Every structure is written in structure tokens, then in C-alpha cells.
């Protein structure tokens, strides 16, 4: 039997729990974030396995389809397919990593730890913000490995471009993580999480313009891409990369046409604003749903 200490020891230190306030809320969010970092550091297999899919898209799909295009007499102009795909593949990597991070809260529920977090005297918002910022950090860190490969697909190593990309990736990852949390709010079992990815996350990828330019699409596809929040997070990435590529105006218009609502060409800043708005909305929805269930 374990030796118990003198119970008097328990009374030496008086610890007071302070009133609620911004500081307490920030500490709660921060420790939730730290836990995500601890878990990320312990899960090397996840880091490596999550790299496999983007690499396949970039090099296998990129090279395979690229040779098909050129043998069919299609002109890929001054832009090789892997180069075109690079920002899209970054987005796909973020999409799956961040969505997984968000949905992983189902595991916390399954193992009971979610309860420890939700019964604490802090707001659900702080917990979920910590979780979403944690997931976004993990997704961004994983993207650093992909960004290092830029040179292999003809994207120049421009420090400012990398900085812009990292900021955009972080924002997008936060939005997707909030989406994952919102989806996971009502899930009680881990088994139901996987169909969720197939049903919602995969369509988001195909309908975001990550794998093809958004110009000259059939109307139904244009509508679907325009209602997809992911679209507005992907487009700025491509914009930033194409700004650094040496391509003709015609090629740029073909490969990076941007988003147009009818005749209105949506500027990049508005796309970023929309991503922020979606992030806040999705997180707000997630908070409401978590409050209702627990």
C-alpha cells in the first residue's frame, strides 16, 4: 500500500482561485494551446504520415497530369502543373491537419478530458479558442516542411512571400479547426468522426479551387465553389505565390483568375476579411453547440 503523507502537509500552502477576468481566460486558452503542442511533439508518426498526401498530390498528380496535358497538345504555358498546384497543396495539407485537430476533440470527450475542461470556471469560448489556435499552430508547423520544398516546383525562396503564406495558412487553419470543432460538438463517438471527414472535408477540398483554377467553370460548379468558405482562404495563397512567379499576364489570367462574383472581381483583402468572418462565425457556432450539449 502506498505510504500516505502527513495530512497536515495539505494545509501549508493556501491557494486562492481568483475572480474571472481576461487574464484567467487567457491563461486557460493558453494552457489548452500548450497541451496541443505537447501532443504534437509526442506524435511524430502523425507529422510524417500527414506529409504523404500533399507530396503525392504535388509530385505524382502534378507530374502525371502535367505530362498528360503536354502530350495532349495542351499548352501549360510558362507554368508547370506542380508549380500551379503548390499553393493548392499547401491548402489541402492545412485542410486535413486542421480539420483533424478540430475533430480530435471527440477523443477528449471519449476519454473524459473534455469534461475536465468544460467544468472549469472559465468560458467555453476560451477553451475552444485555445483548441483552435493550437490546431492552427500544428497545421502551420507542418506546412513549414512543405514550404521548404518550394524550390523543387519552381517557386522562388522569397522571405516576404513565406511570411505572407505563413500568416494566411495560420488564418485558414484556424477557420478549418473551428469548423472541425463545430462538427465534432455533437459527436459522441470516435467512429462517427471518419465519415464526417469523408462527407464534409473532402468535398471542401474539391470545391475550393485548390486543384484547378476558378475561371471558366460550369455555372453549378462556380456556385458551389463560391459558397465554400475554403475557396476564400485558398485564393490569397495562390495570389501571393503568383505575385512572385515570372509569368505572362495571359498565363496569370488563366492559372490565377481569382474569384469573380458575376462581374465583380473579389479583391484579396476582401477574401481575407471573409475568411476572418467565417472563422468567427464557425467558432461562435461551435461554442453554442458545445454549451448546449455539455
Amino acid at each position: 500500500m502506498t505510504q500516505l503523507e502527513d495530512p497536515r502537509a495539505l494545509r501549508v500552502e493556501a491557494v486562492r482561485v481568483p475572480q474571472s477576468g481576461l487574464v484567467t481566460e487567457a491563461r486557460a486558452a493558453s494552457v489548452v494551446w500548450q497541451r496541443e503542442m505537447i501532443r504534437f511533439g509526442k506524435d511524430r508518426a502523425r507529422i510524417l504520415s500527414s506529409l504523404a498526401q500533399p507530396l503525392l498530390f504535388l509530385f505524382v498528380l502534378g507530374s502525371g497530369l502535367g505530362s498528360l496535358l503536354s502530350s495532349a497538345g495542351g499548352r501549360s504555358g510558362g507554368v508547370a502543373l506542380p508549380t500551379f498546384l503548390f499553393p493548392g497543396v499547401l491548402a489541402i495539407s492545412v485542410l486535413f491537419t486542421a480539420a483533424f485537430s478540430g475533430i480530435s476533440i471527440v477523443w477528449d470527450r471519449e476519454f473524459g478530458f473534455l469534461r475536465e475542461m468544460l467544468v472549469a470556471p472559465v468560458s467555453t469560448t476560451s477553451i475552444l479558442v485555445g483548441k483552435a489556435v493550437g490546431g492552427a499552430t500544428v497545421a502551420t508547423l507542418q506546412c513549414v516542411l512543405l514550404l521548404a520544398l518550394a524550390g523543387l516546383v519552381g517557386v522562388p525562396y522569397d522571405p516576404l512571400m513565406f511570411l505572407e503564406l505563413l500568416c494566411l495558412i495560420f488564418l485558414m487553419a484556424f477557420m478549418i479547426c473551428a469548423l472541425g470543432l463545430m462538427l465534432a460538438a455533437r459527436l459522441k463517438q470516435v467512429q462517427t468522426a471518419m465519415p464526417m471527414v469523408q462527407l464534409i472535408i473532402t468535398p471542401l477540398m474539391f470545391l475550393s479551387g485548390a486543384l484547378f483554377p476558378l475561371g471558366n467553370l460550369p455555372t453549378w460548379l462556380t456556385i458551389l465553389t463560391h459558397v465554400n468558405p475554403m475557396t476564400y482562404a485558398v485564393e490569397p495563397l495562390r495570389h501571393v505565390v503568383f505575385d512572385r512567379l515570372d509569368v505572362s499576364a495571359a498565363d496569370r489570367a488563366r492559372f490565377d483568375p481569382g474569384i469573380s462574383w458575376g462581374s465583380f472581381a473579389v479583391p484579396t483583402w476582401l477574401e481575407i476579411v471573409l475568411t476572418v468572418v467565417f472563422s468567427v462565425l464557425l467558432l461562435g457556432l461551435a461554442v453554442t453547440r458545445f454549451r448546449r450539449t455539455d
Partner: protein
Amino acid sequence: MDAPAVEVRGLTKRYGEVEAVRGIDLEVARGETFGFLGPNGAGKSTTINILCTLVEPTGGTAAVAGLDVVADRAAVRRRIGLVFQEPTLDGPMSGEQNLRFHGELYGVDRRTAAARREEVLRTVGLWERRADPVSTYSGGMRRRLEIARGLLHSPQVLFLDEPTIGLDPQTRASIWNYLARLGEAEEIALASGATGRGVTVFVTTHYMDEAENCDRIAIMNEGRIVALDTPEALKAQVGADRVVVGTDDDEAALVVIRREFGLEAAVHEGAVTVSVPKGAEFVPRLFAALTADGVGVRSVAVTRPSLDDVFLAHTGTTLRDAEASRGPSMHPMAMRMRGR
């Protein structure tokens, strides 16, 4: 400051057609170890969840540490420690990391947090294992860590919902040994004139033997409190203790008992058996009377009614039967299997 640790008035909780709690009144003093007993499905967990601000009552009021559980939810949460029926630890994190997480979540003062972590870890005997992932801990160690965590932010009331469920008897005993020592710590503090930073322990269980460790217990059945008192008093209410005396001359002993105490004793299996309300207090007087009459006493035994007898007396059924009739689906383990 002197508000009771827990104060409940006319509390009810209804889930659709089901009345889980049907109007209960309860008061728990500071520093008390209070046991909440009853079969599964009696309404214990619902009541404790209301007190922990996790469930809102349908009617009546409940206050913890003088604060209303509905109106002052956050303030109540800061003053209570929780140990749930089901585990709520993070397996990949170490024991100390789990505590650190909790301290940050509860906004515990960083200057004292490390010392406090050491203190609670040592108290539950987990200091040596603090750096190991919780996934490597045994069931009993996890429970002890959860108790340590529940105490980390110095709560006024520590709520434990079936803390020993699913544990082996030896581990159950060690958990109770520890909980009992929390009570001792309280007495020491009060005796030394320390400010009454009292840990009140509010614990539910459906093991009657465990309830013996509590200062007072309430027995709940079908949403109502059917008995509330100290374990001793409850058992005394149920009935008499049985005093069994082995004497040199049983016939003479029967006469003495009738003459001196007006009680009808009987000889069972070669010993004089008599029923009295307080057996322990009766024995010295019985000795004196028998010795005065020259009847030699060879042995004595006092058998007390158990809390199972108490439960039977108040509900007309034994605890085991009460659980069996509810069926296996009400068992928390089964609930968990269904993915509750």
C-alpha cells in the same frame, strides 16, 4: 463565512416524465465528510450534478459555500473540487502535467502552484511517479491523481461521485483511508486555531461499508432522502444491538438480566443473547450486575446492525435487490459501454 458547505431546499429535477429528484432538503456543515448513499438510479448523481452546477434544478434551491448554484455558477465552480464517476484525465500527459493544466485552468497563483502540486501529489503518494504518462497508471493511481487534482485549487467542498466504482477492495480501502485523513487534517487545523479553510467532503457511493467512514450520511431512494443522520444513529434507529455473553451459569445470568434491567434474554447456541439499543454502553453495566451476583463472564460480543439493515428498514428492500430490479442498464459501466 459561516454558511453551510451545502444547503439544499426543496430540490427537484425532472427529465421529461421522469422525476429523478423529488424534493430534497439537506444541510452539510463545513469540514464534514458527508456520504450520499443509495442504489444506482436513486437520484444521487443528479443531485451531485446540480450541486456542481452541471445540471440545473427544476425546482427548489441549492447553495454551495453560501453561493447559489444557478445564479453564481462560476463562483461556485471556483470553490469546488470534482472527482467524477468516469475518468477525466489526459493519458498522454504526465501526472504533473495534468495538475499543471488544471492549475492554469482554475487560475491558481503561479507563485504557489508548483509547491501546491508537490503537496497534493505527495499526499496521494504519487510524487515519485509524477513524470510518468497517466496512461501507465493503475486504476487506483488514476483515482488518487484525480483526488489530488480536485484538491489542487483548495476548494471548500470536494465532490466525489462514486470515487471507488470499479476498483478492487484493497484500492477502495486506500482511497477511503486517504479521504478519512482529509477529515483528520480538518480537525488538526481547527484545533490549532487555523482559519477554517475547511475541506468538506461530499461523496456518493452505493457501497454501504464505505459509508461507515462518513460523519453523516443521507440515504436516497427513488428521488427522496429516506434517512439522514450519523451512521451510528441510523443504525441505532433501525434496531437494537445484539449482546452475546458467554457465562459460567446461563440460567443465573437470565435471572439477573431480568431483575436488573427488565430485559428478556435468551440462550442461543450456548450463549446468553440480549437485544439492547446501545450495546457498547450496556456491556459494562451488565458486567457489573453479573459480577455482583457471582456469575462469571467468559466472553462477550456486541453485534451491531449494518447500514444494509438501515437501508432495508427504510426502503423495504436490500440494496442488492434494489439494484437488481433496476436492471443492468442503469449501471454506470454499462452506460459507458453504450457511449453515453
